[in-house]
């Protein structure tokens, strides 16, 4: 092996040091916390694996985990097909391309807590534009502060509004990279629109779509700010997703031990799913 090749490591070193301090050291601390109990003042008592055992058998955790998977599953089921449809209907050339791209990128430029606040004000039943229209003009009962179904519809719609653009932009990048020759060949063969999509566009978009699904999975699985600002986890516990519950335990109840155990289980789930996606993504490259 050439010696020069090793120099690359020195360029990566600053990043490694940074990651060590902002990820690795806190992570090790979380592991230490997860087997101990503290009442503050940096005093710890050994607790063993009790927190893990309690958590894995607690209905509260199961419910939050179930809500989290439901949320992530629903937004993936909506955002991915919708993103592909929008990307397919966007112009590939001409003056409208930059306009469409900027319009698509706009929701992603808004800070997460602002998105939550916007949708909160937009959907409040008495003063929000949508809330007022639904309840008082159209007469359809819609109150995301009281009704769990309405709250779920609101957080799903908010996430779709905020993040479908990411899928659109990635899918669009995949689409524009397809050479014209493919379409011409399809035209000569008399392929239908569906065949063009199925056998040309979809395979070419596969890699970027996997990245899109991976990013959307991780982001939505770790989502906190937007639903917290919008519903605060309510009404009741109906929109208390995993991270909201975690923050409640860690900062509300100040139970650092159980919160640390929960973080580690949370991390293990995210790690497993991300690894599965990563393996699927790179499986074809390795052949």
């Amino acid at each position: 092996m050439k010696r020069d090749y090793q120099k690359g490591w020195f360029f990566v070193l600053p990043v490694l040091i940074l990651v060590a301090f902002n990820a690795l050291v806190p992570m090790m601390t979380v592991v230490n916390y997860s087997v101990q109990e503290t009442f503050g003042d940096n005093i710890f008592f050994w607790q063993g694996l009790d927190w893990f055992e309690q958590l894995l058998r607690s209905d509260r955790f199961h419910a939050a985990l179930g809500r989290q998977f439901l949320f992530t599953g629903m937004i993936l089921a909506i955002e991915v097909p919708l993103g592909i449809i929008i990307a397919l209907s966007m112009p590939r050339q001409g003056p409208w391309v930059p306009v469409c791209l900027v319009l698509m990128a706009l929701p992603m430029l808004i800070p997460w807590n602002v998105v939550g606040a916007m949708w909160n004000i937009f959907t409040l039943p008495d003063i929000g534009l949508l809330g007022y229209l639904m309840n008082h003009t159209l007469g359809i009962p819609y109150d995301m502060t009281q009704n769990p179904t309405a709250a779920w519809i609101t957080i799903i719609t908010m996430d779709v509004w905020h993040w479908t653009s990411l899928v659109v932009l990635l899918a669009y990048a995949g689409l524009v990279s397809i050479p014209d020759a493919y379409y011409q060949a399809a035209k000569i063969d008399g392929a239908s629109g569906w065949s063009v999509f199925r056998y040309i566009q979809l395979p070419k978009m596969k890699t970027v779509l996997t990245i899109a699904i991976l990013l959307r999975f991780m982001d939505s699985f770790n989502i906190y700010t937007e639903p917290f600002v919008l519903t605060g986890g309510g009404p009741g516990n109906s929109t208390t997703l995993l991270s909201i519950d975690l923050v409640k335990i860690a900062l509300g109840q100040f139970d650092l031990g159980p919160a640390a155990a929960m973080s580690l289980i949370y991390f293990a789930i995210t790690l497993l799913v991300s690894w599965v996606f990563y393996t699927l993504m790179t499986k074809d490259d390795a052949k």
Partner: protein
Amino acid sequence: MIRCISFILTVLLPLASAAQASGWGSVGAEPEPKGFSWTDPLWPEFWMAWTPATLVVFIGIFTAMAVITVIEIRSPGGAERRGILGLTTTRGDRLFISLLGSVYIFLAWLGIVGTPLWIPLGLAMLWATFCFWKV
């Protein structure tokens, strides 16, 4: 007067000595130094809440990473192969799959059965052996 003295002698004195024996009056005293414990705080003043037990876990993980790094330097290429799961894995991948799988084995055991964890430890070692051998 006699009744008072006999009350002090028969009731209060034994009570006081019993209280003394159970630790009263020694609140401010330094605790007896105990022997080594895996679960006591390692550096009580430090914020990371280390205990010998958790330290050993991380030493184990970092040692495993160091070992595969040394092997990689000795024979580069990562011993890449296609295992029975249809995945192309290197030594690092196999270590990662072993560790991640072990986490799930332990968590599943804790959730379904509970402590102690000797059986899942055996299962995790079998899983790691399987990973390095076949995956």
